[in-house]
Every structure is written in structure tokens, then in C-alpha cells.
């Protein structure tokens, strides 16, 4: 993909400024409708997920006390992996977005939540909520585009070092929680000069992260193995495995959000003076969904509704599914492409892009990028838009 501004046939050329503002108003109205109907059943939902997660974690850890017996190891590791995934995705990520702040429960609030992850909540909220969600898919602004270590867009310059990026991406997947922590610290930038390294603000953030990493590691790799007595080595292995599974899973889901083919990127200058409608439009084109059943949605933290999440990052995650058909209909009416596909397909598409862009742009001229699943027809009805 090339940034939308440099494409020959821009997928938004058919929209007038007025269309874009109307689109924004329709989305605002949709948001208001959900906000007005938030209530007891939503609160019950998140409490149930949290309770399930804690039961799974306690149960898994209890079973792992006997982890030297194989069946116990498998059951315990599976429960712990699921618990960790739920905690990071459907609970942590979404609570820290403020999706549940309206409940005014101090225990389930973006300002108080700390998650089961190497990166401290404060730093993650800054780099994710403030930077990524604001500058989504803007080259040179959104560091999530390739996490500053990869080339994921034709518009990014190729260097020979990019040849290694399929390997970097794999290593990043394996150690994803530490990758995120390093990324939230902007290590690449902050370690580059002596001056930055000595900056007290950076040093304080680094200390906070190291403290968090230490506590997290002590819990998983020391305390719980010790509690398992004779099962210590196998419990240690179980914790390593659960963290690995969680890392691989979250990395895959997150790649599906913005990397697959069909997702658009934007020029740095294009967001100067951006209107609310234009911001919405960028979110719509810069995200991709994953299709699947209820289990997939909850295990991805409803990031399978990445488009809906990017439009409304602070709406309760259990509501994305409900508004998705309305959002998709809106794409159709405005002649835009709603990018979605199954998990294997989207993961493959994202990996293909990582591999393709590890090479210079024209290198694989003969194997053009395959378009992702486009449900809406990109050639749209101006009439439909005019009548909208």
C-alpha cells in the first residue's frame, strides 16, 4: 500500500468535504446512541469477564501446584494462558481505554488499572491511547506502524537492514510484552544520545518499567514455582509457556488490526487541520477487522472489531459487535471498503506484507499484492451518498 494521498485512484476521491462531515455526524449519532443505552447489563458483562478471568487464573495456578503430573501441567497452562489473554485484551486494554470509566467503580477504571504485562499502565496509555489512536496510520507519526523497527508501507524508505524484518517480527512476537515495554519507552529514540539517556524524565520511566518487569517476572518465574515445591521446574515452564502463548496471540491479533492488505496509510501533512469527519474517515480506512464467532471476539478483546474500536475507542467493548452492522452499512453507503477476513487469512496477509516490504518496492513486481477481502464494492454509488 502507498499512502492514500499518493495513490493514483484514491479510494476517497468520490467523497466531497460535505460527505465527510455528514459521515462524521452519522458516526457521532451512533456513538451517542450507545452511550445513552449503557447500563446494568454492560456492567454485569465486564464484571463477569473479570470474575471468569480471576477464577481461571486462580484455578490454573492451583492446578499447577501439581504441575509435575502431565495432565495437571496441560490443564493449568491452558487455564493460565487463557486468563492472561483475557486480562490483557478484553479487560486490561479496554479498561485502560476508559471504556468502563462511566461505571465509576474505582476498581475498574482507566486511572487505576494495572495490567498483567511488562509495560506499566501509565506508559502504555500514553503511547497507545494518545499517540497511536490519535495518529493512526500516519507515516512518521504513528509508531505502531512497524513499531519503529519494521517497514510496513511502500512509503517508508527501504534500507538493507529491512531484509531481516521477518526475523525481527518473529522475535518481537515471541517477546511481545517486552517489545511493547521497550516501545512505550521509545528506547530506540531515547538511547540514541547521551543527552536523552540522561534525561531525568526518561530515567524515571525506565525505572518504573524495570520495577514492573521485575515484579512480573518474580511472580511468574519465582514465587509461583516456589509455591509448587517439587513441581517448581514444571511450574516455571508452565508460566513461560503461558506468557509465550499470550505473546504470540496478542501479537497476531494486533498485526491484524492495521497491517493487512487493504488498510490505508496517510501522509504526515494530511492530518494538519483535520476535521472530526476526516479523523473518522482515517480510522475507517486505517483499520481491519477479523471475522469469527463470540469466542474469537472475546479472546481478541473485541479488537476483531478494530474498525469500530478505532472509531469509538472508549465505548464498551461488548457493544462493538452490536454496532458493527451499522458501521458496515455506512461504509457501503459512502462507497468505502470495510476490510475484514478470518484470523488465518488476516495473519497471513499481514505476514506477507512484512516479508514483501523487507525487499525494495519493485523487487517483486511480478507478484503483486493480493487484495484483502473487500466486502463492500469500492466502486460506489455517488447517488447513494448524495441520498444519504
Amino acid at each position: 500500500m502507498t499512502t492514500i494521498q499518493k495513490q493514483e485512484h484514491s479510494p476517497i476521491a468520490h467523497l466531497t468535504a460535505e460527505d465527510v462531515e455528514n459521515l462524521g455526524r452519522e458516526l457521532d449519532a451512533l456513538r451517542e446512541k450507545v452511550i445513552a443505552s449503557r447500563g446494568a447489563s454492560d456492567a454485569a458483562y465486564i464484571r463477569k469477564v473479570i470474575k471468569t478471568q480471576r477464577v481461571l487464573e486462580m484455578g490454573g495456578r492451583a492446578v499447577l501446584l501439581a504441575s509435575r503430573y502431565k495432565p495437571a501441567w496441560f490443564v493449568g497452562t491452558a487455564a493460565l494462558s487463557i486468563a492472561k489473554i483475557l486480562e490483557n485484551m478484553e479487560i486490561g486494554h479496554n479498561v485502560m481505554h476508559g471504556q468502563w470509566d462511566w461505571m465509576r467503580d474505582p476498581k475498574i477504571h482507566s486511572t487505576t488499572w494495572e495490567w498483567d504485562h511488562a509495560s506499566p499502565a501509565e506508559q502504555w496509555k500514553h503511547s497507545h491511547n494518545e499517540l497511536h489512536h490519535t495518529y493512526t496510520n500516519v507515516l512518521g507519526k504513528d509508531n505502531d506502524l512497524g513499531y519503529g523497527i519494521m517497514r510496513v508501507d511502500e512509503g517508508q524508505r527501504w534500507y538493507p537492514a529491512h531484509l531481516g524484518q521477518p526475523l525481527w517480527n518473529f522475535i518481537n512476537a515471541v517477546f511481545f510484552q517486552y517489545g511493547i515495554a521497550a516501545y512505550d519507552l521509545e528506547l530506540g529514540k531515547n538511547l540514541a544520545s547521551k543527552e536523552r539517556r540522561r534525561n531525568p524524565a526518561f530515567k524515571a520511566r525506565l525505572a518504573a518499567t524495570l520495577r514492573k518487569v521485575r515484579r512480573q517476572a518474580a511472580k511468574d518465574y519465582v514465587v509461583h514455582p516456589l509455591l509448587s515445591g517439587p513441581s517448581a521446574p514444571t511450574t516455571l515452564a508452565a508460566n513461560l509457556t503461558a506468557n509465550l502463548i499470550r505473546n504470540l496471540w496478542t501479537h497476531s491479533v494486533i498485526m491484524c488490526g492495521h497491517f493487512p492488505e487493504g488498510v490505508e496509510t496517510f501522509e504526515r501533512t494530511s492530518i494538519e487541520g483535520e476535521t472530526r469527519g476526516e479523523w473518522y474517515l482515517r480510522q475507517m480506512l486505517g483499520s481491519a477487522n477479523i471475522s469469527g464467532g463470540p469466542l474469537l471476539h472475546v479472546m481478541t478483546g473485541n479488537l476483531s472489531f478494530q474498525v469500530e474500536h478505532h472509531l469509538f475507542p472508549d465505548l464498551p467493548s461488548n457493544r462493538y459487535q452490536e454496532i458493527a452492522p451499522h458501521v458496515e452499512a455506512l461504509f457501503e453507503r459512502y462507497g468505502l471498503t470495510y476490510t475484514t477476513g478470518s484470523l488465518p487469512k488476516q495473519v497471513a496477509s499481514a505476514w506477507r506484507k512484512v516479508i514483501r516490504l523487507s525487499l525494495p518496492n519493485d523487487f517483486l513486481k511480478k507478484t503483486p499484492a493480493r487484495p484483502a477481502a473487500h466486502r463492500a464494492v469500492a466502486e460506489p454509488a455517488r447517488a447513494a451518498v448524495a441520498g444519504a
Partner: protein
Amino acid sequence: MATTRTPAQVSLRDRARWFVELATTPLVPGDFWEVLDPMRGGANPRGRVVAVRPETRDAATLLIRPGRGWRGHTAGQYVRLGVDVDGVRQWRSYSLTSPPRPDGAITITVKAVRDGLVSSFLVREVRAGAVVHLDQAAGDFTLPLVRPAKALFVTAGSGITPVMGMLRDGAGGLGDAVLVHSAPRPEDVIFGAELRALAARGGLRLVERHTAVDGRLTPERLAELVPDLTSRQTWACGPNDLLDALQDTYDAAGHGDRLHTERFRPVVLAVGEGGTVSFADSGVTADADGATSLLDTGEANGVLMPSGCRMGICYGCVIPLREGSVRDLRNGAVTTATAGDDIPVQTCVSAAAGPCHLGI
């Protein structure tokens, strides 16, 4: 019996706690306890509603059994109670109508006010078995340990509640006590039967006023009913205008210190223009009119605002005003902060008076 611990035991305990906390990080052990026992968990005690008894058409008494951490109360005090209404945590204060009981249970009696979110919920929707959030009992609207020889209680509507707590606790020790209570009609008198029975036993002189026929109580009318009122230690709870008038009467007689009042609502005098409020640390900005408290504005926008009595007496809601102006709703006084000032303001009785930044 007092137990003493040696330093070695203390440090062993601390180490055990440290280890358990490390096992549950980044959560705290209480987060897991809560899954096993919903009465445990957060910093505040919780309570289980054991029974809900209707009192009048629009009032009900809740019998609540507080869980761990509840430190008891003195009759006449109130408790802050938190309930989830439509999924949103709401805190309100309610006077305790029970005397301290050996089984530790407490009662509150709530009157549903029109369009009242929490009061309607408590009177009409809460069922036995529900878990509510509690704060510790607070307030100094209480009887002195040495009961006064001559006492007067002046109450109206749901204002009977703290006084009922006192009467149930200390009726025996009160010598010459008078209760003047106002309610629209006889059937609207909360605790009507119990009060009449107490009066019949001679524990108290009861003057019931039915405002639907007698009109509202004025200090003049009260002076006719109780000629020696200002010579009595007096506890009054009712509408603000009645309490204000009483205060004037006692002050004029030079006995202002004999009058003890409990207010259920803040006295709001001054409404001005509002402004944009930014809750800097929470990343929330909201437009507020000049009548809505900063506390309500913050809560409506999902900010975790600290709060207490919600009427300007407990200072449980204070947060720093970083910059900008706020108006005190009780007297119209405007407080202005410039960068670096950090002036603490009571958010429950302050509204925006122009753009302002709060440190939360």
C-alpha cells in the same frame, strides 16, 4: 486482651504479606478474595441488605449487615452508601436509624424523593441479598454522653431519621423531651406508630403536625407549641429554610449553641455562568453550566471524583484548582487560581465560573 508482637513476628508477618502481594501482582490479594466472597475486597467495608421493610407509601427501611472493616456508629450519625444504579456507582448519605446493636447490623430509612435516582432505587428496587458499599459512619449530630435534662427535637419528613436513631438509643436516659414532627398527613409520618407508642408510654411529648391541614411550621408556631424552646438543647433536621429560621431564633435569644442541625441538602444561593472544566490528569474536558457542581460534572464524565457528604461539610471531595475560576454555590464567592497556585476546592459545592483546570 491486648496481644503484643515481637519485632521478629512483625517482620515475619510483613514478609508473608509481601510474598502474597508478589504472588498476586499487579492485582492485590483482595481482588482475588472478592471472587470468593463478595463482602470483601476494596478499601471500604461492604454490607449485605438483609431485609427491606416498607414504612410509608414512599419510604422504606433497609436492614444491612456490614462486613469486615465496619467500625460501628453512634446514634444520630450517617453513613455514606454506594449502590450501582443502571450500572453506575452512586454515593449518597443516609442517617442511621438503628441504635448500635449487639449483632452489628444497621438500618437506614430512605424516603423516595421525586425523580430521585438513589432514593427511588433503594425504596423500590433493592432486594434482600444485595451487596452495597459503605463508608465509616460520620457526623456530629449526636446526643452528648450526659443526656440533657431538657431536650427538643424538631424534624420534618425524612428528617426524623437521625432523631429516630437517637430516640431508640437514648430515650430512656432523656428526661423531659419533646419531639415536634411535621409530615403532610398522618399516614406520611415515618415511624408514626412507634413514635405514638413511645409517647403513650410517657417517654416523650410528641407533637405531630400535618402540614396538609396545619400549614408549614414556623418558629413562631413552634414557640407557641414549646414556649421554652431556646432553653432546651435542640436537635433539628428538616428543610433548609426551617433550619435557617430556627438558627435565627436561637441566635436572637443568645442561645445559638443550643441548636444542633443536620442538613440533607446544601444551601444553594449563587448560580453564575459556567465554563469548560478540564480534569487534567484524567484527560477529560467538559462544558458545565453555572449550577452544576464540579463533582457532578466530573462524575457524569467518568472521572473518579472523591466525594463524601455531597453538601459541603466533610471535605471529602476536595481537589486542587490548578488554574481558572470556580464559584462557591453556597455564597457566590469566586475562587481564582493561576498556574502554580493549586488551591483546594470543595467540588460538591463549587461550579465552574469560567474555564478551569482541576488536578485530577
